[in-house]
């Protein structure tokens, strides 16, 4: 915030270097990698509202799914350009965020949580009944996706998808990083920390939260669009609140309100699921459950919080 610089530290290059390394070291994991990027973007959008805005939500899949369907329907009916679909999804989800946020952000705490749940249910209901557009419970199959920038066609190995998602995540991360470090981000943290005081210093708290919420919804919509474009499929599961819950779990796992929790959480979660599901498919949920219990018991700040504690201990020992 105002006290500490938000300089780029060398360590912040790590996720991107790792992403490149995966491309060379584990080419067969590219489709899984693209999926990890998509969930990173979704979790990042959640961190903006949950971690920085203090708005706990179980409704973010509504915007993810809305973006997924926007990109899908646009591609099926009009134009399969991926960047166009991405922009349309961001706009549509952002506007949906603005409209729904304007209502629900007037409430607080449990009421707010319930309303976010209601939003996912309503959007899901609409999507499953508007079969002419969405194809109902069958979903949109074989969504056409043109080459990115007219040059890079989506290939069987998932190379284009991998780098396309990586580029979008990089762009969005740059945006979110500068948002949370800006005075706007500081004020957002201020209302999370002490709402009454923000009001007392004349801050338009509601308008700020709505602004952050809409931006976050636009990002979630982009994540949804990426899923549609990389899988050529948009289904009702993108709208279910299970996805919202999964996003929250990933965020808590990585660490809430620290930007990089959104990178660590989904990566660990998805890689662990992939591994556990292969070893002992029937115990996968137990594995993730145990992991969560450990995090909540011993590492309130998530994996990154744990790293902080260890680093501080090492420093203390050295000095």
């Amino acid at each position, binding site marked *: *915030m*105002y*006290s*500490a*610089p*938000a300089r780029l530290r060398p360590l912040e290059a790590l996720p991107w270097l790792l992403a490149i390394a995966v491309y060379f070291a584990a080419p067969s994991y590219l489709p899984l990698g693209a999926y990890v990027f998509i969930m990173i973007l979704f979790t990042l959008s959640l961190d903006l509202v949950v971690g920085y805005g203090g708005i706990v939500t179980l409704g973010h899949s509504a915007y993810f799914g809305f973006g997924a369907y926007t990109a899908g329907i646009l591609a099926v009916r009009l134009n399969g350009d991926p960047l166009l679909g991405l922009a349309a999804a961001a706009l549509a989800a952002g506007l949906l965020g603005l409209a729904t946020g304007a209502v629900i952000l007037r409430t607080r705490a449990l009421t707010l949580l319930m309303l976010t749940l209601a939003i996912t249910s309503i959007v899901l209901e609409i999507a499953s009944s508007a079969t002419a557009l969405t194809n109902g419970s069958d979903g949109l199959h074989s969504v056409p996706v043109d080459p990115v920038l007219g040059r890079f066609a989506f290939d069987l190995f998932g190379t284009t998808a991998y780098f396309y998602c990586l580029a979008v995540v990089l762009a969005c991360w740059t945006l979110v990083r*500068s*948002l949370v*470090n*800006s*005075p*706007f*981000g*500081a*004020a957002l*943290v*201020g209302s999370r*920390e*002490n709402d*009454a*005081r*923000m*009001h*007392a*210093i*004349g*801050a*338009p*708290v509601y308008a700020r939260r709505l602004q952050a919420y809409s931006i976050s919804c636009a990002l979630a919509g982009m994540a949804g669009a990426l899923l549609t474009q990389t899988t050529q499929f948009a289904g009702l599961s993108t709208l279910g609140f299970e996805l919202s819950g999964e996003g929250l779990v990933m965020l808590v796992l990585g660490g809430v309100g620290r930007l990089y929790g959104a990178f660590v959480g989904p990566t660990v979660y998805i890689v662990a699921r992939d591994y556990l599901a292969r070893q002992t498919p029937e115990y996968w949920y137990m594995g993730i459950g145990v992991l969560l219990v450990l995090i909540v018991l011993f590492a309130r700040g998530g994996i990154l919080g744990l790293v902080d504690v260890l680093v501080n201990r090492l420093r203390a020992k050295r000095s």
Partner: protein
Amino acid sequence: MTIALETRRLRKSFGALTVADGIDFSLEGGARHALIGPNGAGKTTLVNLLTGALAPSSGQIYLEGEDVTSLAQAKRVRRGIGRTFQINSLFRSLTVLDNVALAVAERTGAARKLFRPAFSHDEVKDEAHALLGSLGLSDDASRAVRDLAYGKQRLVEIAIALGMRPRVLLLDEPAAGVPSAESHRILEVLAALPPEIAILIIEHDMDLVFRFARRITVLAAGAILMEGSPQEVAHDARVRQVYLGERAHV
């Protein structure tokens, strides 16, 4: 003298309980005005009504002659009403500098900026540092508020309010909870505030009240019992009865 803040027949009820019962009160420009009264008299509620944190049941509030009764809190506050809280209301996990900078940034409009890092907004930081310097808090600027001693946290309460450069400042028991050995520090800070700010102070420490205030209003059970100079208040029989009676030193 101009009137900075004024209320007309201001009423507030919580259900059957009336905590502001037709209050006609005015605060002059540059005032050093104290509001005293027993616990539960409705002093904090009056502050909440004045800042817009609470909506009155009826009556009007005028800020520099303009009716602001229906103006939302943020807008009213931006027109120059600052306040502190009886019970610390700070950004506890943030640094002292951040606490004050948040207020400064709201006033200057910097808080609307989405992209340039807060850290590079030198105008906000310089002003916050200068303010902390004037309150003797420079050494604590980069400490988290929750790590400060309570007396210093009370000073941060005041610092945040000053970061808004208010024309009217409502201080709700600024020395509450501060050991008496340290409360002189609060008084020093209050005495050094710019004379043009109209100040209403709620305080139980009569020593502090009589040293600071040039005018005193006594509130009891949601109504104004009397108003006058410190002398008049100290010698008023009704005031002694409801409030001062138990205090031997007045």
